[in-house]
């Protein structure tokens, strides 16, 4: 019998094929593109034009540039955390996961597909946000390699942490319809309390003490360190960029995210068991 001797397709191959299909489906879904993709840039444009004055005590920096840098964190949360959480919850709801489970495709292949999707959409998202920042708000792209290196590890850790947490969070929502609301509430709360939608220097200490436990604050701080003059470090909670601590906190969230993922991932929703 041929099916007994031919090897099964590898998880990597099936995973990449899933990735192609995921990306196609994402960009064909106009609502998803508009809402998860364009929303961060829209908010950046709004905030940037509202707070267009020079930053107090820094004649060459505008408040809008500070927003443009920190808002990249929101972009990543949006395409990694929210769109993965909502997407998986939808896959559970419409039968995508159930169909896969009856085939030789593995959970690993499914997750590789999601990683491909997140990578493509997040890179596109960041490109869009940087373009908005540079064109409208004079955001300066760094010229030295050290800053791009920081950008690189920050981006990688942020994407991994947000994706893993998004996968875990997809199990929190009871249905695909409630998923966007369930995921957006903590995300919006964190954008404010982590100093993404407002200036972090303006926040009460108690609030930043809590938000410092979560990744968004560190992501925002990290991206500001990449795109703003070093003098701006004084505006941060600790008065410095804290790269070491940022890496540590984000790595810890990656580990916690992985554990949560493995503990909570379900092929189907509670109804069908």
């Amino acid at each position, binding site marked *: 019998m*041929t*099916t*007994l001797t*031919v*090897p*099964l*397709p590898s998880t990597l*191959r*099936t995973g990449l*094929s*899933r990735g192609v*299909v995921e990306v*196609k*489906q994402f960009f*064909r*879904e106009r609502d998803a593109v508009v809402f998860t993709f364009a929303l961060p840039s829209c908010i950046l444009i709004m905030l940037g034009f509202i707070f267009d004055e020079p930053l107090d005590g820094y004649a060459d920096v505008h408040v809008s540039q500070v927003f443009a840098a920190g808002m990249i964190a929101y972009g990543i949360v949006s395409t990694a955390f929210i769109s993965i959480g909502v997407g998986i919850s939808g*896959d559970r709801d*419409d*039968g*995508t996961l*159930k*169909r*896969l*489970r*009856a*085939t*030789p*495709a*593995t959970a690993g292949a499914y997750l590789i597909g999601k990683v491909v999707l997140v990578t493509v959409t997040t890179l596109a998202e960041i490109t869009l946000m940087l373009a908005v920042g540079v064109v409208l708000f004079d955001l300066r792209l760094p010229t030295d390699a050290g800053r791009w290196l920081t950008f690189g590890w920050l981006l990688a850790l942020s994407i991994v942490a947000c994706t893993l947490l998004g996968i875990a969070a997809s199990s929190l929502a009871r249905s695909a319809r409630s998923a966007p609301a369930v995921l957006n509430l903590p995300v919006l709360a964190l954008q404010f309390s982590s100093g993404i939608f407002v200036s972090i220097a303006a926040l009460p200490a108690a609030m930043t003490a809590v938000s410092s436990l979560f990744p968004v604050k560190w992501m925002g701080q990290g991206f500001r360190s990449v795109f703003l003059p070093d003098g701006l470090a004084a505006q941060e909670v600790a008065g410095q960029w804290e790269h070491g601590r940022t890496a540590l906190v984000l790595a810890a969230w990656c580990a916690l995210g992985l554990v949560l993922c493995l503990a909570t991932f379900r092929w*189907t929703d509670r109804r*069908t*068991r």
Partner: protein
Amino acid sequence: MAVIEVHGLRKRYGRHQAVDGIDLTVERGEVFGLLGPNGAGKSTTVEILEGYRPRDGGDVLVLGEDPGTAGRRWRARIGVVLQQANDSAGLTVREVVRHVAGFYPAPRDPDAVIELCGLSDKADAKLRTLSGGQRRRVDVALGIVGGPELLFLDEPTTGFDPQARRQFWSLIRSLAAEGTTIVLTSHYLDEVEALAGRLVVLAGGRIVASGTPQTIGGRTEESTVSWRDADGTHQVSVADPAVLLGELTGRDDPHLTDLRVQRRSLEDVYLDLIGESR
């Protein structure tokens, strides 16, 4: 060895016993029907056989393995058409059939499968634009593209118009003719009668009858003879209608008309069977 062997299968949801001790054997190459009203436990039963749901009790072997623990190799040998699926709405028929074919070690040719399922002129249409019957045929295409030995179909034609059902039936017949073993659930009698070689009737989680569409529920045992004469209409159920027929025609009665002999319809049998279990 039988393709499916089930003994004493049980499954409860909370306090509701959805499957209450089922025995089944399905042989290689047959089309086996699981007939029953909504809520009878058909989907629960097939989803246990497909490896989706855990069971509470009983022995289950599908292609020689326990579906609860079987691996990828085993899944490459079965095909599943679920009762409901709305996935991949943004992909075209060809994209999704090719994609799923890639999961299997020895898939059928995707374009040939699309053709076989009567979807050639819809191959480049997105799934969301298809009619209910066309979408269902995509589900079948995805169920068979891996080249399964055993295909499960859970209420495949619910919501079809009569013509679409006929086309669907001929698709199933051609798959069966190729040697695929098929397990079909339905609450349509005519569908099971048209397709299945053997069937069981499920009601309230139990098998209330089993046999072939011709013999099920003692269908061959009695016939109804009805006629009209000067006294009015008559109807009698008898085991051997020939005797009564001989007697009636031997009377030489000029008023005798509308003489009819009918085997009990499968529908009568079915309604009796599921009525008893209520």
